[in-house]
């Protein structure tokens, strides 16, 4: 519902000028006098015309009416009327602009990106900004960013809009909505506007404190892109590289996928995909050295989005998994020893030492090297759980276990009996464990039997009972469980499977502890990061698709490539509904940004046209008789 409002309503007083106008009109009105022999015929003419022309009275004072209308239009323009939209009625208007990768998709006909269309709408909206209205601009991709505070400064707003660029990141509203809610807490906001192409995650974990208007631009042209790039070791020196290409076109689209190893093209393959379809390509790669793979998609014909056409993947050097098992844990050692691609250590006694092991199995928490990627502690109650769980000399039985845990997959624990029973101390429970970051994987009849704790890249499993005091080593599930642990360690050490890193943040790297490293992005820009005390280098932003080099001084210690790798972004699909925590918001296709529509120039234009008409009408023949 729109209403007419006036910026300068006091200008209506100028309508009082109509009084002197009318007076002057009648004072100044002079018709040319023409003496004729008799009015007889003309009287009849006028009478006849009055009968046949009901608007004669109106036409008699046409000049006055035109002048009054002209005055009214000029005053109307002076009052600066505008048609208020529902969204634009408020004084403060936050606008959230989608800058995700799909906004960089181009239209085949115009060559304009979605973001260009949004920017045009925004600039138009800024031009029509009312004097008492303020805009705050936010941009978002996977995270949000505030571009301007609430301001009516058109120059600032336009500068912020013109600086907007599409990123190589997927679009999510959660973060920017939280940011907007926090920022607008002190302002009377009842609705916000989201300008997007509709290609955003439809599930949003956010409780809307305001109404939301979703303004969508038209969908772009066809697109195909790489949505998955991973590799799996198939032999000591062999890898199978998988590439999935998805399409976003009603027609079948063709292209060629090229694979580069350390910059050298080694293979290519033609492909065909259509909308809502994908094609998975497999390339065999043989290497023992760290190799940087690049999958490059070369579409045939027009392709809306270039961002999703290149993806990088780093293959690690081939080596066996290094496992350290405490010398007293014979059952574990036997189970590990029979596994392939594993290098067992620890049989000689002593601690594992350093960080050289990918997996450590120990019956003591206080060992050096416990920060290995995967640690399994047997018969150990973590020190921070001492006040929650205690060990009792009772027979414990397994009640339930987490069958989806990587460690317990395909493991049957139903008839396992434990000679000692970890039990909750009175008043304590699962909640206390979870508060300390633990997850219960096996529940016994008195308390937890196995808990897991993740810390960064490290994952630690704690058997709160000693496996030697249970029937577990004698069950078929035990070697399966050990194999699961080794498999998890292989994945953790990227020795069996690797996947390309999506844009956003670079995956954490194991490096020298407490040391500064430089991360050089695809554009040559560098960021200096310091590794943690545990030797983890993490938190490096990777907002652009491309290759990132990790430098220690002048040496490149490793390279990591990123890709968009987002099926939703590559599909360019538009969501029809946004599912918030409590409400569902529909996004109408083709909706334009609703805003106040100024009418002053329209009134001024009509007044000017009216003035020209009046001039023409009264100058074409002014009282001439021949």
């Amino acid at each position, binding site marked *: 519902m729109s209403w007419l409002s006036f910026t300068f309503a006091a200008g209506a007083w100028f309508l009082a000028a109509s009084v002197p106008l009318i007076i002057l009109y009648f004072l100044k009105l002079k018709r040319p006098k023409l003496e004729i*022999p008799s009015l007889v*015929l003309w009287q009849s*003419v006028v009478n006849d015309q009055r009968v046949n022309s009901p608007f004669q009275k109106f036409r008699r004072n046409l000049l006055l009416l035109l002048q009054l209308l002209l005055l009214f239009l000029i005053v109307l323009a002076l009052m600066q009327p505008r048609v208020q939209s529902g969204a634009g009625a408020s004084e403060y208007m936050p606008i959230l602009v989608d800058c995700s990768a799909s906004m960089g998709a181009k239209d085949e006909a115009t060559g304009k990106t979605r973001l260009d269309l949004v920017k045009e709408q925004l600039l138009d909206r800024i031009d029509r900004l009312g004097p008492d209205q303020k805009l705050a601009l936010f941009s978002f991709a996977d995270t949000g960013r505030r571009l301007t505070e609430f301001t009516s400064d058109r120059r600032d707003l336009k500068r912020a809009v013109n600086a907007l660029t599409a990123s190589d990141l997927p679009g999510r509203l959660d973060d920017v909505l939280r940011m907007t809610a926090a920022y607008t807490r002190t302002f009377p906001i009842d609705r916000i506007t989201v300008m997007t192409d509709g290609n955003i995650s439809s599930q949003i974990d956010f409780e809307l404190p305001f109404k939301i208007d979703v303004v969508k631009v038209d969908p772009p042209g066809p697109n195909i892109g790489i949505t998955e790039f991973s590799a799996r070791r198939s032999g000591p020196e062999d890898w199978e590289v998988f590439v999935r290409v998805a399409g976003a076109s009603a027609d079948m689209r063709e292209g060629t996928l090229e694979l580069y190893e350390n910059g050298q093209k080694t293979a290519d393959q033609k492909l065909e995909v259509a909308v809502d379809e994908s094609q998975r390509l497999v390339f065999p790669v043989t290497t023992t050295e760290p190799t940087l793979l690049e999958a490059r998609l070369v579409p045939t014909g027009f392709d809306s989005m270039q961002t999703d056409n290149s993806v990088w993947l780093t293959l690690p050097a081939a080596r066996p998994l290094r496992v350290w098992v405490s010398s007293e844990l014979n059952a574990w050692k036997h189970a590990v020893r029979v596994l392939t691609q594993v290098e067992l250590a620890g049989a000689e006694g002593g601690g594992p030492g350093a960080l050289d092991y990918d997996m450590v199995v120990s019956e003591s928490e206080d060992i050096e090297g416990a920060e290995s990627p995967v640690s399994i502690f047997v018969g150990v109650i973590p020190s921070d759980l001492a006040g929650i769980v205690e060990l009792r000399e009772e027979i414990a039985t397994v009640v339930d276990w987490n069958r989806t845990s990587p460690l317990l997959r395909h493991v049957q624990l139903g008839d396992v009996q434990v000679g000692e029973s970890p039990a909750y101390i009175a008043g304590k429970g699962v909640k206390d464990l979870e508060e300390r970051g633990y997850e219960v994987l096996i529940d016994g009849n008195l308390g937890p039997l196995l808990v897991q704790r993740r810390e960064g890249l490290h994952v630690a499993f704690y058997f709160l009972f000693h496996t030697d005091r249970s029937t577990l080593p004698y069950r078929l599930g035990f070697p399966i469980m050990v194999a699961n642990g080794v498999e998890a360690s292989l994945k953790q050490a990227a020795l069996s499977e690797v996947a390309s890193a999506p844009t956003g943040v670079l995956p954490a790297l194991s490096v020298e502890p407490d040391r500064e490293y430089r991360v050089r992005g695809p554009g040559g820009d560098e960021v200096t990061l310091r590794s943690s005390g545990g030797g983890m280098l993490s938190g490096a932003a990777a907002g652009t698709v491309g290759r990132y080099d990790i430098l220690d001084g002048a040496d490149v210690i490793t390279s990591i490539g990123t890709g968009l790798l987002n099926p939703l972004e590559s599909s360019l699909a538009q969501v029809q509904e946004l599912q918030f925590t409590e409400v569902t918001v529909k996004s109408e296709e083709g909706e334009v940004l609703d805003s106040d529509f100024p009418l002053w120039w329209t009134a001024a234009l009509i007044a000017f046209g009216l003035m020209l008409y009046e001039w023409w009408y009264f100058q074409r023949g002014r*009282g001439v008789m021949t």
Partner: protein
Amino acid sequence: MTIPSSSSQLTSLFENSVLNQIERMRLKPMRRLTNRSRGEHLSGKGGSSTDFADYRDYAAGDDLRYVDWNIFARLHRPYIKQFQHEEELHVVLIIDASTSMLFENKLLRARQLAAAFGIMGLLNVERVSAYAVHQKQGEQWILPPGSGRQKIRPLLTFLEQIGGGGNVPVEKAIETALRFHRGRGIVVILSDFLTLGDLTRPLNLLYSSGLEVWGVQILGDSEINPVMQGDLRLVDSETGETLDITNASELVNIYHDQRLWLQETLDTLCRRRNGRFVSTNSAADLRSVLFDQLCRQGWVTR
């Protein structure tokens, strides 16, 4: 037509050549509405002229002088010879000399036509009288009835001195003239007939007085084909009343309709009273009007 000013001209109203032609013309009334007195218009009844008309049986008391003795000698029965009775036709000229007639030589044309009709009447031994209707005091406005060639000069003098002016409508002018008139014949009303009044009553009075009504409407060129544009305030020349019109060019068509309707009305009024009506442009050539238009319409004979 310019008024001749030479001293050799008999009148300032038209040239002598026109006058010569007029002298050979006679009025042609629709009916024989004549006076009992002597005149040159033939009566339907037996008269005392030398022109033989018919025979009838003798009746007791008839004047024996009219018995045809030759017939009596052959047939031995007395027959009375009848002769055509030549009676006097009265020609009344009513000239509208109001202010509206002063535009575009309308009054001049009215005086010219009145002179022509009057001369035709006088030269045919009719009784001619003239009335100039206006409000100017001190000016002669009645020419008493008279006949014969010797009355031409007074008629022309009377017509030449009509100045015009005033706002007497034509219906009032007719009624005024009737108060002074006696006799049967024809009445020629020379006017623009632009009056708001009803002409039915005065024309009825004329008809009942034994006068055949000849209406001659004289309009100016601007009244026949007005060319106007824009907004105008029209001022009546007689009453001074004003009328505002807007976008006059769009009203011209309606004006033409109204003018034609007025002419049809006047024509009907005259014809219903055994009369005739003609509308003429004051700018038209006098010879064309007299010797062509009026002749073709049967008003006069040559």
